């Protein structure tokens, strides 16, 4: 079902699946076009988690999905505040952050019972991808070009504020030692991880594609990890 939360830019929609009590995962998708490619797998993963008795919430951030905020007006700080607002709404339950790619940069302000990160990346890595995209689009994206020459910056069809990109420069995934933390990676990603699953990363696919096997594997990994956390 679709519910709503009050974010920093106004009312935003969120997809809620599974039981309304007990542990719940709050999903932060990757950024921009990668979110479109990953959403179908993320939603299938939440449906599978619901079958494990775990609730799931997938919010729109300001400037994404159904949001009334213009994409180019959204800021990275707003997304982090929006994430915290949703976590506060869910405070009566044990809320776990499930964040993917750039989404792992968004979940740092919320008070969470644990963080489960899929292919976490730094803000610098997000920016490198933006520069590559613009190189591929024939728009040579040197630093000057990315941060100043064009405003908003076009990132695969999304109009992104240059301030948003500048905010990403020093950002890193949050992993305080006080709460459980698990890193899962996909495919040929060689970076350190608790587990690497042999699957094509959905964010790399040219078109959003269903991958029920991957969705089920991710859900099972999260369910087992939450069971361990809940002890």
């Amino acid at each position: 079902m679709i519910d709503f939360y009050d974010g920093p830019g106004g009312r935003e929609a969120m997809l809620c699946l599974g039981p309304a009590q007990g542990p719940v995962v709050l999903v932060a998708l990757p950024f921009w076009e990668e979110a479109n490619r990953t959403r179908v797998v993320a939603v299938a993963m939440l449906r599978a988690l619901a079958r494990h008795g775990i609730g799931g919430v997938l919010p729109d951030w300001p400037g994404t999905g159904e949001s009334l905020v213009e994409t180019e007006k959204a800021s990275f700080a707003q997304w982090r505040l929006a994430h915290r607002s949703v976590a506060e709404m869910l405070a009566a339950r044990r809320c776990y952050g499930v964040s993917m790619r750039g989404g792992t940069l968004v979940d740092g302000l919320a008070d969470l019972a644990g963080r489960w990160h899929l292919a976490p990346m730094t803000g610098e890595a997000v920016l490198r991808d933006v520069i590559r995209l613009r190189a591929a689009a024939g728009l040579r994206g040197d630093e000057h070009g990315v941060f100043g020459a064009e405003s908003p910056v076009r990132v695969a069809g999304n109009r992104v504020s240059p301030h948003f990109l500048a905010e990403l420069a020093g950002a890193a995934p949050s992993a305080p030692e006080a709460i459980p933390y698990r890193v899962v990676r996909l495919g040929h990603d060689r970076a350190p991880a608790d587990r690497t699953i042999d699957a094509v990363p959905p964010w790399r696919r040219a078109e959003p594609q269903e991958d029920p096997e991957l969705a089920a594997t991710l859900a099972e990994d999260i369910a087992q990890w939450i069971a361990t956390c809940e002890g």
Partner: protein
Amino acid sequence: MELQAGSEVEATVRGVLADVLGLSQERVAGFDAETPLFGALPELDSMAVAGVLTELEDRLGILIEDDEVDGEMLETFGQLVAFANAKAQG
């Protein structure tokens, strides 16, 4: 960096095109050196180009500089394999 045999690199390039562009294995197996890619495959837009390059980096353990990204290296399957081979041989 470990050396990768040319045929291995070619197989990796086929695998990446199939996975990123969502093409069937049969279709990708039919690609030869002259098969046109950029401009000929509707699936290969700029987002997909970025995905193909990054996935090639991961699978071949190579680094592609963004100023090396041009239409020529993606013009045909043969040119993309030659580019990947040159990178993989370091």
